[in-house]
């Protein structure tokens, strides 16, 4: 088969494809809206709102290319402040499915001390919800100081996308939610598993610092 595009197709079909190639560009306002959601407009880029965190967690998060997942409604930004480093000379690693993370039991979470869990409906996946949107909801639940809901949403992601594109982000969110829920032992186990599964991850430093801090506590 030749490499020239569409050379095996009838002439009238080639003509149709040629017309499709001349389709109009996407609307500029769409480009701007998506850029805004990605945090690509304005400078410096403001971090998305986040709940107060203990100093040790804050320091663990520093320097990490972590995530700010925009929710389904478009709240928040994904691309926040630390951009990825462009690796020019390293061998190319093509997009690939992330390894499925085997299920790890998560014990029942304790309600955060001095705070009654808000009465909310159990989370359900929205119709045709994407993994980005679902993780966005989990992140929002953390921002709302509701780690139990966040964990429930993260379990939905784990069931729906065991080998999803954002499996590492899910794991880090889960560790954070376990910490917030007071499940230190489960958080440590999850963190150890993360480091074993993704030793070269850009999030490994964050998890490593978090794990060391958990060991000290």
């Amino acid at each position: 088969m030749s490499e020239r595009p569409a050379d095996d197709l009838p002439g009238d079909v080639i003509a149709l494809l040629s017309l499709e190639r001349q389709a109009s560009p996407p609307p500029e306002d769409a480009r701007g809206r998506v850029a805004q959601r990605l945090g690509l407009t304005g400078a410096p880029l403001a971090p998305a709102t986040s709940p107060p965190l203990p100093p040790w967690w804050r320091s663990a998060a520093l320097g990490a290319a972590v995530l700010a997942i925009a929710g389904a409604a478009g709240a928040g930004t994904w691309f926040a402040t630390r951009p990825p480093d462009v690796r020019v000379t390293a061998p190319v690693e093509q997009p690939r499915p992330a390894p499925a993370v085997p299920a790890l039991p998560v014990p029942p979470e304790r309600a955060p001390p001095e705070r009654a869990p808000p009465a909310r409906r159990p989370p359900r996946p929205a119709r045709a919800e994407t993994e980005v949107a679902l993780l966005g909801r989990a992140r929002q639940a953390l921002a709302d100081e509701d780690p139990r809901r966040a964990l429930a949403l993260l379990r939905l992601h784990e069931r729906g996308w065991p080998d999803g594109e954002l499996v590492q982000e899910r794991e880090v969110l889960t560790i954070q939610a376990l910490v917030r829920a007071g499940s230190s032992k489960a958080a440590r186990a999850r963190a150890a598993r993360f480091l074993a599964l993704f030793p070269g991850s850009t999030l490994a430093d964050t998890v490593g610092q978090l794990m060391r801090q958990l060991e000290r506590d």
Partner: protein
Amino acid sequence: VYLAPATTATEPGRAAFRDIYEQEFAYVWRTLRRLGVATGELEDAVHDVFVVVHRRFDDFDAARPSRPWLFGIAYRVASDRRRRATGVEIPARDDEVLAVADGGPSPEAHLAAAQARRRVHRALAELPIDQRAVIVMHDLEGHSAPEVAEALGVPLNTVYSRLRLARVKFVAAVRASGTHP
């Protein structure tokens, strides 16, 4: 998860991500549209693609063409949406198909072009997404078969066989759409 503060940002990397967004937004948009993402979901889908691009940016070799890499990500995002969609796929709106750049041909030619594009979209919608992807990437965007194989993560021979099957179905679907405008 917490965000890194602004002080950790490195301007070159940030600029590189911004550059790829600016340069390839239109490519990602039309790729997703051709892969069957409904008009009303395109912005969300483009956003999801660039979220994954950002996540995987360390894997990106700037010395190589970015589009096969982007196509692979867009393909997975579109496939994911397709798996989760419960309704019937909504083809591109007529007004979107009808839209052409300013300074185009006569109204009659404009209409004919719009009708032709509608036929292409309807025919693409008849194909399974894996076959649709090879038609879009190879026959519409002009990527080579090895690039298609790389983007979709399949052997080269699979690309050739899939393209052969896809073309047969695509031509049949185009013919059928021509008899039922």
